[in-house]
């Protein structure tokens, strides 16, 4: 191997090493930040361990919302018609949060099986449901599933 070729090989190896490291970090960061969507039925079927972050989606159960007056604490139940999950949240709710509305909550289950939400999302349009929520409702045989089909 000529000296210039050797040098070139070194540069190429260095670049590969750099890019390889970046890719490795990217993949591990991606793995850590992947949030799976889980329906209430699957949560109840014990599919999620405590403290593991995921996205919970379903309808806010009618009559389940309890809110504090002095703080932003709020509790409600998310349902897909077949199973229920209790959710606790202590922050500002999205504009279209109300009973019967489809929402997605991001957070994790605590040891008591209550879903501690860090974030609650609802769509800007009351006729619109997140397709994931609609899909989960459909699987559980909930009549509201059709709402999600509207564009």
């Amino acid at each position: 191997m000529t000296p210039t070729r050797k040098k070139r090989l070194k540069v190429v190896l260095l670049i590969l090493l750099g890019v390889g490291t970046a890719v490795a970090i990217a993949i591990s960061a991606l793995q850590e930040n992947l949030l799976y969507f889980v329906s209430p039925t699957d949560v109840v079927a014990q599919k999620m361990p405590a403290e593991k972050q995921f996205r919970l989606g379903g309808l806010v159960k009618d009559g389940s919302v309890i809110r504090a007056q002095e703080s932003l604490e709020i509790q409600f139940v998310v349902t897909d018609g077949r199973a229920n999950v209790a959710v606790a949240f202590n922050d500002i709710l999205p504009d279209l949060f109300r009973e019967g509305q489809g929402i997605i909550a991001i957070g994790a289950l605590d040891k008591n099986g209550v879903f501690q939400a860090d974030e609650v999302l609802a769509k800007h349009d009351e006729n619109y449901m997140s397709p994931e929520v609609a899909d989960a409702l459909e699987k559980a045989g909930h009549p509201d599933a059709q709402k999600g089909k509207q564009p």
Partner: protein
Amino acid sequence: MIGELGQLALILATLLAIAQTVFPLIGAWLNNNAYMQVGHSAAYGQFVFVAIAFALLTWAFITQDFSISYVANNSNLHLPMLYRFSAVWGAHEGSLLFWVLILSLWTILVAITSARKNSVLPKEFSARVLAVLGFISLGFLLFVVFTSNPFTRILPAPMDGADLNPLLQDPGLIIHPPMLYMGYVGFAVAFAFAIAALIGGKMDRDWVRWSRPWTQLAWAFLTFGIALGSWWAYYELGWGGWWFWDPVENASFMPWIAGTALLHAQAVTEKRGAFIGWTLLLSITAFSLSLLGTFLVRSGVLTSVHAFASDPTRGVYILAFLGVVIGGSLVLYALRAPKMTRGGGFSWFSRETLILINNLILIVAMAMVLLGTLYPLIADAFGLGKISVGPPYFGLMFGLLMIPLVLIMPLGAYGRWKQDKLSRVSRQLLLPLLISAAIAGLSAWFIDNANLRTIAGVFAGSWLIFGSLAYAIQRSMKQRRKWLPAGEVAMVIAHIGVGIFLIGVSMVETTSIEKHIPMSPGDSFQLAEYKFEFTGSEHIEGPNYSADRGTFIVTKNGQAVTTLYPEKRSYRRGQVMTEAALDPGLTRDLYVSLGDQIDAENQRWAVRIYKKPFIRWIWLGTLFMTFGALVGMTDRRFRRKNTDKAVSA
């Protein structure tokens, strides 16, 4: 009548696009002037007809012609006049027509400049450029006519339309899409230049020099457009973030990153003749990512892979077009690769090396955004579960990658072409380094709740600002003349812009104070040195919405600062919008928005109160970058005919 005339105009434009693609190519091949000329005429004609179609659609919105389904879906009798204009590109069909209009505008700009007597472009080259642009336009016109026709009728016509998405009913959103599209679509010109060079088989420094001002102009628009979008999201989405790593944002950010890499690679190719293949590939990449962005945003694939699968015509068409454009370009590239010349060599420490590192980092960053954006779609399509990628992934990866990039930026400016010494460059940069360290030290003292990340960010920003300034000063002293070449001024301005941006980002991300609290009329809240008093909320009626409007009196040490009126609006279609109220300032923004109503009777609201230090610097920095690129394209050497006689600056 409007609908039918619009259809006709679109069909005529499509026929002209075919002429614009075919004749110049044959003309350039046979060296036939008359055939090549057809490209220019067809481009002008196409622009006229696309503009007519666009004007007719606008007219349909102004006159509220609800017999056109697109108008009925995106407007109503109460929509204010201003938003009837922006509604034209507010949804799928219209925005694609707008895409074509912008492309047509870029095309005639190329046609006009290349038809001038003192044009630098050889006529075969400009003929091929117009042919490539014609082909892209043809692809989009066919898409509009067959899958997304904005002039489709509905019978019977409804008495009133639905409404424009209220998120889009905002002055910021009137000019955001045009700017963004100018940038997005503008990369088509750089792409067309690259393909024209490949077809012609003359891949040298010349075509890069011709392509540079166009790339810079497109990049300036894209930068400005993305910044406008960020600014809009900040005050319109009601929770005060400036960037969300949302797939729609990523769709515009990926071409931006590739475009930034392209700008730098072009400098090497133009000055030193190196990286020719790489510059060609980046030109193809930047535009392919623009197309991918259009596909992501416009095919419905983001809302749901299933929505895409249930009505696949649109998505499949764009995907196929994407395949033709990318695949065709790469095949052409592979055929021409053996003919590409090797540029001048360079040593391990030189401006070339530094720009190579810049490009590697940017491309890895782009790939990482691409991975995070597409991964959920791919996982869903293959039934691996419904996944989303959290913003921390993007923030972490992007932040890590930007550290080395920012550190070498001033070195890149100072580094000489071909060969340089690290020791020489470091000596030159010692003073800026010391100044930045001093500023970072001071910031630890003076900024409330500054942490290590704040200080690192302030240091990095100052390093860019003072490193670039020092370069400008030393260069002008050496030059013994008042002005540096525009290209260098551009670099200095843009790099200072990145510095300002960085300071803004690190201040906002690490020292913002955000409080979410319940408030009743009469309550007040102390946030840092500001006192926010909520005096109550009232009901008001807007043209197409009704709202609750809160009043917050802000004082600092008993002195009045401002009064803020955040609103909670309900639109006719059932959407609810949070209109934040803010008091902007160079060193801080005060931000108040109404969350949900806890108790309607007592007017008790959940309230967001934020102090966002230096957030304006984020957009100020992007303005510098935009302005830098605009200065860069005025460089005199872009108007000279021959590189080899030109002295490289």
